[in-house]
């Protein structure tokens, strides 16, 4: 089992992290507090600064300004003692193609004084049948799981997962989620970055939404969605002539509508109750002779939170 926790403070703490690459500001004063035993998510579009932040926390990168504390310690020298307590999965790691899967995990196991057996780590990520296979022969999802096995092999107190499911097929993605959920059950602290809102919503106890190198919102996924003031989103579009006859104030006055946003010809309404809002909306459109060319409804998600905060979608950055 993991060594008794020496202090009861937070797992991660950083204040005012700033990192610039020439003209580009990757981090513009990032603050984070991650508690022990929680799964904490950094959610944001590509280029938001998530990876830079994680690499600074992992001691792989040095901030221009700001303070970092990991498991109550700061990064000094090679940080070997601290690294023994961490597990790291980078966004993409190419393990040597000519090594067998078991040889890779055995190699990483040799870096730790205590931890899982190579076979145990492989069965944890569902790769036990591939133990004798060459890395070269693995699929993208299997390589990602091997990387996860190497992150877990030292039985870490704190695990960093940087976009663990990017580029994976849905099945591999669900497998990864189950592994992370298993870690949560065992009380491990996990910091995960992702630009998939459903991933953050499913795995994370708390989520920080990051944009332009800064945390713009932080709460549980449920509270973040609730902050929209309504649980549903209605999106509709009309032709141009009809759009001119509509206004935000008129739509906001419809029953149960809490928010209105416009993107050229399409509108997004956040609503409390779809069954009350939609008939009234259709009636209002019909009154003005505006025929909707498109209409959908869905449960509000973190993506909608991001759009409400930034006016942009997560995926297109």
């Amino acid at each position: 089992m993991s060594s008794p926790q020496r202090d009861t403070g937070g797992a991660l703490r950083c204040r005012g992290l700033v990192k610039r690459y020439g003209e580009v500001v990757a981090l513009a004063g990032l603050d984070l507090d991650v508690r022990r035993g929680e799964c904490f998510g950094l959610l944001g579009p590509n280029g938001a600064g998530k990876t830079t932040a994680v690499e600074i926390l992992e001691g792989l990168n040095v901030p221009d300004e700001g303070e970092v504390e990991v498991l109550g310690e700061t990064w000094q020298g090679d940080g070997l003692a601290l690294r023994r307590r961490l597990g790291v999965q980078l966004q993409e790691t190419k393990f040597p193609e000519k090594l067998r899967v078991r040889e890779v995990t055995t190699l990483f196991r040799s870096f730790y004084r205590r931890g899982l057996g190579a076979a145990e780590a492989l069965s944890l990520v569902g790769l036990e049948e591939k133990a004798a296979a060459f890395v070269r022969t693995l699929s993208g999802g299997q390589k990602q799981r091997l990387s996860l096995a190497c992150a877990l092999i030292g039985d870490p107190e704190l695990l960093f997962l940087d976009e663990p499911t990017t580029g994976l097929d849905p099945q591999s993605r669900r497998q990864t989620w189950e592994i992370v959920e298993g870690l949560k059950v065992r009380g491990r602290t996990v910091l995960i970055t992702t630009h998939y809102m459903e991933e953050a919503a499913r795995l994370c106890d708390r989520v920080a939404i990051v944009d332009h190198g800064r945390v713009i919102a932080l709460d549980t996924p449920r509270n973040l969605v609730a902050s929209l003031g309504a649980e549903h989103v209605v999106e509709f579009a009309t032709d141009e002539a009809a759009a001119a006859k509509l206004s935000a104030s008129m739509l906001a006055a419809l029953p149960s509508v809490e928010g209105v946003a416009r993107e050229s010809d399409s509108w997004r309404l956040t609503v409390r109750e779809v069954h009350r809002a939609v008939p009234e909306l259709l009636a209002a459109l019909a009154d003005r002779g505006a025929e909707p060319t498109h209409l959908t409804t869905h449960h509000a998600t973190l993506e909608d939170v991001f759009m409400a905060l930034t006016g942009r979608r997560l995926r297109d950055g």
Partner: protein
Amino acid sequence: MAEAAGAARVRGPLAELTLARIRELTREPEAVFWVFVFPILLAAVLGLAFRSRPPEALPIAVVAGPHAGARMAALTAERDLKPRLLTEADARQALARGHVVLVVSDGEPPIYSFDPTQPESRTARLSVDAALQRAAGRADVFTAGGAELTEPGGRYVDFLVPGLLGMNIMGTGMWGIGFSLVVARNGNLLKRLVAAPVRRSHLLGAQLISRMIFLVPEAGALLVFAHFALGVPLRGSLAMLTGVSLLGALAFSGLGLLTAARPRTIEGVSGLMNFVMVPMWIFSGIFFSTDRFPARLQPFVHALPLTALNDCLRAVMLEGAGLPPLLPELALLGAWGAVSFAVALKIFRWQ
């Protein structure tokens, strides 16, 4: 969680990293070819091409005429001459085309036509003149004995094998270390290893150790082949040869590390590798002696680490040299290694 799972065989990080490197190398068929087969093939082919042949008789022409019969008889008796009887016009043409190296005219005394810039022509002139003078009645004042030297040690292949060994130590040292480091950096593996609790000295140390381990079969295969199949001598001690080879491998590992310290791509490191190695292929006396370069270039030629390594290998193998005479060149080799290591560690890009 099993506390000490796999306790049956837990190797330390340095041993595991070295083992991983050796596995990678031995599972790469191309690497095995270039490291083991290629030098042997090269030694065999070049040994064959430049094998020692009995000295060939020099082709000369005698112009037909009243004196031709007696001259042909005198010259045919010479072991190192091959005279032909030709008409004046044919003889001129044969000389112009290089079929013969000298023409003897039919006059009395004869006139020798030859190209004095050609060593073979000059040699033919001396032999022809001596033979004709003798035939005309001159007595030799004395007859010098001749000791002919074709024993192993003085042949081209004997010169070549130590050079090939040096070239191989350079190539595998630089590529073996440089290539794998850049691949690891490019694929984020280096960054991942740095994120793990492993000492950087172990990461680089494993590269060196696997290099040294590989040197044994690599140099051994070439030397065993050269010694037993080509009769190349090993006059110095095996310990000296091993020591010189190890120092050379270390020095070139240092250079390999330095070359691979910054580049992120294979293309980048390949260009740098060639920039470092091509001058040594040319100037360090692999295929021919460094004495051929003009005096102005000699300080540069002798500052190159491969020149030092090749000189030491030749001295040990062909002359049976011991440690003292080689110390200056070994020191130069060591300095190259130490300086490039130090600089490489200073500027190394870990991610």
